[in-house]
Each structure stands twice: as C-alpha cells, then as structure tokens.
C-alpha cells in the first residue's frame, strides 16, 4: 500500500530530515510511527501526500509513483490519503459540519449525499452534537475527532494521523486511538505518528521507530511476539489499577 525505498530528505538548511529510510506498509495494516520530536515522522507524512519531494529514493502509494505524479494529479492522491494533521488545520470560520463536508464538496460529491455521509462520519467519531459549533467552541479531544472526521469522509484507503493524541489527557487519547483502531478494522490502512508510549503498548500493533531521521526499530517480524508482550504489559497495568 505504502512503499518508501531508500528515501532521504535533505532540507534547505542542509539538515537531513530523513536518511535512507525504507518502509513498507501493507493493506489494512495499523502502524505506529514513534520517535522524539524532529525524528522525521511528520516528514514521512508530508512525503506520502507529496507536500514535499524527497531528495533521494522512491515512494509508491497504491501503485502510484508519488514522485513522478504530475502536479495536476496531486489532488487525486490526496483524496485517496486522509490526513489528520498535527495542527489539525481546521478552518476557523466554518462550523464543524462545514469543515467535515469540505473534502466531499471539493471532490464534487452531490450535496445531499455529502450531507448524509458527513452526518454518518460525525456520528461515528462521536461529535454529531457539535456539528453546528465553530472550532473555537470545542475541546482538544473534540477537535481531534473533527479532524479525523474530515479525514474520513472520502473513505480513504490510507489514513495518516499525525500526533492525534498530542496534548490530550490519557482517557481522551485512548478514545481517539480506539477510534482509529475501529477505522482500521473496517479495512483502512492507518499510520499513526505518536510519542504516547502508553497507547503504543496498549494497542499492540506494528511499531516503526525513528530517531534523527533514521530507522531505529521496525517490529514487523516480531509483531506477534512483541505484540503479545505489549498486550500483556498493558493488561498487567490495567489489573494493577
């Protein structure tokens, strides 16, 4: 589904955002992308959506060569890949409903159908009651859900979530993570960048670790073993509580 091969990204300042990264994410997989700030998590997302181009290497998303994609076709790629941005990027002068329906309007979906889909998605992420509020009127967790809703309305094959639990309390963060897991269960490939170790351990999914632009961990092979270990650890934690 997503294939990064020997990808390097050198920024204008001369700093390497990523160096020689190779990652393959399969269809309907759930992957955590972990690492400290500046590790290159967001850079990977921006490369996948062609916000930026890599200095070296190749990127394939669902059989599309992202690097060779002509400028006029980028919006097709972006409709296929839903992104929950770290800074959410919600439009402040539009209601939650208007923000959520935007990708459908952009894609030219008929307004009646679009409204129906939007309501369903808002229901699913649990903020249907806030549909007519503006972003400033919502809490952090609710905003995060709004951003997820917007990323989901086009039923993308891939969902990239950049620190969706960033500055949320643990309960809310788990709620968000559960939501992403549900989405994944319905067949969407989910890549979630986070540094919330609690969630990573609890969900026992494949973990890709980055540090200073280098790949330091990929649990793909040991997923089952490691996964169960994480699950056990979190189960222990819950018991202690």
């Amino acid at each position, binding site marked *: 589904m997503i294939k990064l091969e020997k990808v390097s990204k050198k920024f204008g300042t001369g700093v390497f955002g990523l160096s020689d990264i190779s990652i393959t994410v399969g269809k309907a997989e759930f992957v955590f992308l972990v690492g400290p700030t500046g590790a290159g998590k967001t850079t990977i997302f921006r490369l996948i*959506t062609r*916000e930026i181009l890599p200095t070296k290497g190749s990127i394939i998303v669902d059989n599309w060569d992202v690097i060779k994609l002509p400028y*006029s076709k980028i*919006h*097709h790629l*972006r*409709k296929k890949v839903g*992104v929950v*941005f770290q800074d959410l*990027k*919600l*439009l402040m002068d539009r209601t939650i409903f208007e923000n959520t329906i*935007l*990708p459908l*309007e*952009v*894609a030219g979906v008929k*307004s009646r159908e679009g409204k129906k889909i939007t309501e369903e998605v808002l229901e699913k992420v649990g903020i249907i009651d806030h549909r007519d509020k503006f972003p400033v009127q919502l809490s952090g967790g609710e905003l995060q859900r709004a951003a997820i809703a*917007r990323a989901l309305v*086009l039923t993308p094959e891939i969902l990239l979530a950049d620190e969706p639990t960033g500055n949320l309390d643990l309960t809310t963060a788990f709620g968000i993570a559960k939501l992403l897991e549900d989405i994944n269960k319905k067949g969407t490939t989910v890549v979630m960048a986070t540094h919330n170790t609690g969630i990573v351990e609890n969900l026992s999914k494949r973990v890709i670790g980055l540090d200073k632009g280098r790949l330091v961990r990929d649990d793909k092979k040991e997923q089952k073993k490691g996964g169960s270990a994480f699950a056990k650890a979190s189960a222990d934690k819950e018991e202690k509580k």
Partner: protein
Amino acid sequence: MIFKTTWKNIRRSPYQAFAAILIMTLTFLVVSFFTFVLIGSSKVINYFESKPTLTAFFRNEVKQEDINSLENNIKKTGKVATVKFVSKQEALKIYRQQNKNDPLLLDLVTEDILPASLEISAIKIEDLSTIHAALKSSPIVSEIIYQKDVVSALTSWTNALRKIGIGLIIVLALVSIFIMVTIIGIKISQKKEDIEIMRLIGASGWYIRWPFVWEGIFYGIAGAVLGFGIATSSIWYATPFLSSFLKGIPIFPISLIFLLQLLAVELAIAIILGAFSSFLSVLRYLK
C-alpha cells in the same frame, strides 16, 4: 458551492468590493457616455448630410423682382428639387414660433432685422456646390449657409471626441484591471491558510481559483450595470433640454433596442475585463 464561496468572499470584505465595483462603474460610465455622444453626433451629421440644402440670405434693400428672377434662374438649372422663398414677414413668424416662450427675445427682434431668404434643396448632394457658386456670384445675396461647412465642422469635432473617448476608456480599463488584480491579490493572500488547507485535503487548483475568477466577473458585471444605469438615466433626465437644444434633429427618443445592445456589449466587455484581471491575479498569486 463555488458561487457560495464567491459570495462569502465579497460579503466579508465590503470595502474592497466597493472599490472594485466603483472603478468598474466609472469605466462603464465613461464608455456609455462616449457611446451616446458619438452615436448622437453621427446622427446629427447624418441629418445634415441627408438634407442637401443651402440657405441664401438677401441684402435688405433687394427688390422682389430681382429675387424672383434669381429663383427662376436657379430652377432652370434642373438640379434643384425645391426652392422656397421666405419673406421677412415669414422669417419673423418662424422666429416668433421658435421663441414663443421668451418674450424678451420677441421684443428685441423686428421684421427689419431678419433678412428674406431662399431655402434651396438640391436633388443630389454633389450639386450643392454648383448651386452655391451660382448664388454666390449674384449681387443680391449677402450670405449663404452651406450645410457642408456644418458637416465638416461637426465631423472634425466628432473625430476629436472619439480619440479622447477611446484614450480615456483605455486608461480607465487599464486602471480597473490593475485595481482588480490588486484587490483579488489581497484577498488571496488573506486566505492563504484556507487555500493551503483546501489543497491538502485534495482540492484541485481550479477548484480554489474559480471563486476568485467569479468574484472578478461579478465586479465587472456590477460595474457595467451601474455605469450603464447612471449614464442612461442621466441622458433620460436631460432629454427635454437636449431635444430643445438640437431643434428638429431626430435623436430622441433613444431606441430601446439600441440601449439593450449597448448593455449587452458592455456586459460582454465587463465579463472579459473581470475575468481577465482575476485570471492575471490568480495566476500570479495562486500557483
């Protein structure tokens, strides 16, 4: 959806919208006025050209027999359609009729001041100069008013007006293009963040650009309608004064079909101007 966005953009920055519409209005006001003036003056010229007439005024002391013989001589040439003698008394009557509302002018003029005259119309406009020469040689004729002079004076005025008009319209059109490009450019940079977000969620370039282009077209159309409206209503308001000024020359009323044609042409120009300037702006600021 695109129109909704366009309308929101306009509504949320009323001063910029006002400036854009105002400059467009000014441009189309000038376009309308100059069209009226040029069409009007060409009608005046046509009027004079279609009347191959000249008027010969006689000296005061001239005897009726001399006038009669001159009249017969001219009729004999066969180039004359009609000859009409206007005596001093008749001239006074005509004068009184024309100025019946102005007692002061009526008091000032008596029969003696007004000369008797012959109003001659030729069959062909080319023959006027022959008739003119014949009359001029006659000792009893004091002055000849020759329409050709009027026509050539009017034509040179009209040409000058046309040049001024075209120059003014070009300058105003350029000014409106630059102002529109600037205004739409400001709007684009105000919405930079929104545009960025739209792009990231998969909006194509033209999905983002169209509302701005429509906005430009809207300003153009609004300006054309307003400019045309102001020009037309002021012409309509001035009609009584103008028709008494242009005695007998059939310019008024301006036909409705002509007005509609003018409006259609102005709307077409407005759409082109609006679209062109917003395209310029969009291509410059939204790559």
